């Protein structure tokens, strides 16, 4: 791996993104609108918004970056650019990390917009630490990027890549504790939820929102998400094959 090539790749991905203002607008505006809608739907019970909005802030980056990255990577694979890149000095790790950095940066802007709207306009209670909240969102986004890169190996087309989103994200969403506490689920489901990275993001965000200080559990949650992201990037890079049949 070579930091210069990693950065060049991240820069290239961001330049491509810059040419697609509609995607940027969707990525930045949609979470804000959904949060507002959520607040309006539960206007009769304001505590529901207070309880669940942090969990939503954890879900958006994972879901959206997964989608954006898996489609971008399917394009690289089917357009022949991936095969070509793998015949150059670019390392597989440079490519994976380049994507991770580019979409991580986008996720940071998204998290700033979504949490800004939630805190300043929608009246979400101040969390224990805004920087830690942003950190969780970015780690979560890099995880989504890494999962998207990996899944792109299984998708033969952009059409299929989109179908993988509910398959990968919805089970995590159901088991994250957002809809019902994991402790009230059947034992085996609770066990499964422990290997679902989104659970830790939801847990971390909720603790930040409802506990006055950044507890050790929040750092543990952040560590688990970051670890899963790195692991997924490593597994994802094994799906990049220089030699094929």
């Amino acid at each position, binding site marked *: 791996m070579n930091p*210069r*090539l990693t950065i060049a790749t991240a820069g290239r991905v961001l*330049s*491509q993104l810059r040419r697609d203002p509609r995607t940027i607008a969707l990525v930045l505006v949609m979470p804000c609108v959904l949060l507002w809608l959520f607040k309006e739907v539960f206007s009769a019970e304001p505590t529901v918004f207070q309880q669940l909005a942090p969990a939503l802030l954890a879900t958006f980056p994972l879901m959206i970056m997964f989608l954006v990255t898996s489609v971008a990577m399917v394009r690289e694979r089917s357009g022949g*650019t991936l095969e*070509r*890149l793998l*015949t*150059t000095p670019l390392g597989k790790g440079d490519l994976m990390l380049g994507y991770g950095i580019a979409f991580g940066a986008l996720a940071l802007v998204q998290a700033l917009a979504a949490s800004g709207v939630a805190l300043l306009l929608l009246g979400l209670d101040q969390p224990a630490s805004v920087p830690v909240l942003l950190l969780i969102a970015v780690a979560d986004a890099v995880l989504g990027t890494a999962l998207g890169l990996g899944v792109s190996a299984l998708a033969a087309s952009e059409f299929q890549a989109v179908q993988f989103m509910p398959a990968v994200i919805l089970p995590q969403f159901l088991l994250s504790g957002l809809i019902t506490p994991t402790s009230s689920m059947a034992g085996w489901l609770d066990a499964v939820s422990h290997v679902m990275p989104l659970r830790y993001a939801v847990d971390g965000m909720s603790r930040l929102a409802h506990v006055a200080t950044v507890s050790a559990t929040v750092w543990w949650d952040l560590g688990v998400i970051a670890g899963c992201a790195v692991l997924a990037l490593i597994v994802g890079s094994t799906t990049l094959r220089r*030699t094929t049949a």
Partner: protein
Amino acid sequence: MAAIDIDQLVVRRRGNTVLDRIDLAVREGSVTALLGPSGSGKTTLLRVLVGAQRTTSGTAHVLGRPAGHAVLRGEIGYTTQVASVYPDLTALENVRYHATLHGAGRAAALAALAKVDLADYADRLVRALSGGQVNRVSLACALVGRPRLLLLDEPTVGLDPVLRRDLWALFRAEASDNGTTLVVSSHVLDEAAHCDRLLLLRDGRLIADDTPAGLLRATAAADLDDAFLTLVTTQEVPA
């Protein structure tokens, strides 16, 4: 040293023999045309040389190293048949990215675009360019690293005759000025006249390996088209 040295190379894919016992040596600094109808194995052979194709048996050496060796990734420029560039970047951004991958900068990228006669289109988005222009952006990406070996898969397909002539002049210049070795695939037979060597593939077999003049003599044909037809007809008699 031979730039390319292939010995009894076999590639089978899902039971089909795509390349059948290929023996081949390409001299450094030469321009070689790899000819054959579509489906004859040209692309597979180029993919073997860049290390993208799994082989069944035999060996392929490139610039003294086994094909696919990590060091070679810095020494080979490769274009695929379908231009593999990013449509949502400008021509210059595409070439600059490849320049960076090969340790070169903006000046090298501009020079490569000038070589393929696209200097005026540097800031155009690739998706706004014509098919022939996109192919040349892809070519510039391969040239920008000043590779020792250029492997070009049908770089002249779909181009008008003037542009084709200019590109062949560029290929010749790369070989004579920089000592670059070029292997250029094509299914247009008359392009073979521009080359030092021609290789004719048919159904995965190498059925001719000669200079254009040598091939005309050997087949007693009036032109290269005739020579190929003669070869193909003789090949149809079971060996």
